[in-house]
């Protein structure tokens, strides 16, 4: 069974990974849909491509949690630490982390907070 999700992923891969021209890919896809009577799938393929784009944007979002407000330079340093190439970051102040920062970027959580270190130390001492 041909799924719109699989077609959408294939089209995105052809443009991003294989470097093909988007116009050519789109044209080939329409011809393919016409030839194999799959025109009814075009709308859902478009929807899937948009979802993939949203997911990708979500992945590239940076969310930083700090214990106290910080200056721009510190934020840039944090972005460099987590391997980000720049871009807007969503900053949240949360005193619960005690110090340091946590950052979410590209499906990874970078925990440089004081809270996690205190918890690690507590567990280490519990083993005594």
């Amino acid at each position, binding site marked *: 069974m041909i799924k719109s999700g699989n077609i959408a992923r294939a089209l995105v891969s052809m443009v991003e990974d294989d470097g093909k021209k988007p116009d050519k890919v789109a044209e080939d896809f329409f011809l393919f849909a016409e030839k194999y009577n799959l025109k009814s799938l075009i709308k859902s393929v478009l929807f899937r491509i948009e979802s993939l784009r949203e997911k990708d944007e979500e992945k590239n979002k940076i969310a930083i949690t700090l214990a106290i407000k910080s200056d721009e330079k510190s934020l840039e340093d944090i972005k460099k630490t987590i391997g980000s190439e720049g871009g807007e970051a969503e900053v949240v102040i949360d005193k619960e982390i005690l110090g340091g920062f946590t950052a979410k970027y590209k*499906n990874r*959580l970078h925990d*440089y907070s004081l809270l*996690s270190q205190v918890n*690690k130390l507590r567990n*280490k*001492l519990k*083993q*005594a």
Partner: protein
Amino acid sequence: MNTESLIKNLKKRLGEFEASPEISEIGYVAEVKDGIAKIAGLDNCRMSEMVEFAGGTLGIALNLEEDSVGVIIIGDYKNIKEGDTVKRTSKILSIPVGKNFIGRVVNPLSAPLDNKGEVEKDAEYLVEKLAPGVMERQPVDQPLQTGIKSIDAMIPIGRGQRELIIGDRQTGKTTIAIDTILNQKGQNMICVYVAIGQKKSKVARLIKALEDGGAMTYTTVVLAGASDGPALSYLAPYAGVTIAEYFMDQGKDVMVVYDDLSKHAIAYREISLLLRRPPSREAYPGDVFYLHSRLLERAARRNPESGGGSITALPIIETQAGDISAYIPTNVISITDGQIFLETELFNKGLRPAINVGMSVSRVGSAAQIKSMKKASGKMKLDLAQYRELESFAQFASDMDAETKKVLDRGKRITEILKQNQYSPVRVSLQVALIYGVNNGYLDDIEISEIGKWEETFREFLVSSKGTLLNDIEKTWDEKIENDLKSAFEEFKSTRK
């Protein structure tokens, strides 16, 4: 001084401590319902890996799909909401184990449920583990005495065996398991009772019975109640055998009761259907056989070179209307080394334990019997089989020959002597004496209705005045012991006149 050494220890641990950041892969809850969550992200998550939700609740990844990961939530899922962060732990589920778990009631994650405080662990063991290999095992040849006459005489169980207890509801399956646990007092055996999807009121009664019988000094209870959700019911048997493996690794003998695996299969079916796995026969997932085979294969008798010790498994299966050819019963029958089949008809007739000896079998057989029991019970199964054949025939026949009458009378007496009360296990030497007596005609002149009272008095007589003989019977069997036993019967007979 204790304070000095504590300070030294703490300083050492502080010195060893390294402050390093944690970088973990995260995903987000896309969907959560009925104890199952679908997580978006977690592209590198592995099968059966543990994941941690925002509030510290754990889950196990069971479905690795193209766009998402299907996770069963172990614990309370009501605080988990869509969009919550989920972290990979890079670990497979493990639970604390140790000697302090004996006498405790815990849940499948080893958290205490008996309000007696935290349990100090000795180690952490993986819940899913490979079973011992062929070369690590040795044949089963040491008896596990259940204290139930019919079982020890005709369906003997050995240490390291898997013996299934199967029957309809309310036929005495759990009673057999509890009686077996009660009989392990002083037998160098550690017991683990796993309650899967049971009513907590029933488990409370069982724990009371174990406490009253002094069995909690060597028993651990693992409880996943009916209201605890399918995830904990799914994990419970594996947690039980994990706790048992800790003791087996120390060369000890352990017995694990799984009560019952039918509910375990139903919990797994529920999880699998919620995870949208394709259903097969009776809506069970395709790997329901593997669910039980990998559990029961962990029961083994290990050779001394591999550390010794054994795990004996007593799985329980509940049938519907006596149908042992249904899917789950046939699966488990083919995995185990025998079955004890309980019938509602026998139970209602007053034959308790309601064991259908004809349909029950122990594939280990007399290799798991002490010498005296082997000698005493030799022909008993055959005699009972002949009795059952003639019993129905005798209802219609008015005149019977002497031989047939003899078989029927003997069969009735054997059936009567095999009856036993709940929570009343019988010492093996007493069993040998009773079975020897009934098979050799010492009860032929006792009325059927008097046999129960006779047995009680005879047992008291043996315990009070033939203690040495009973000890000898447990060790071996020879002509002298046989003659002593015969003399005991004569002596008892003369005292009753």
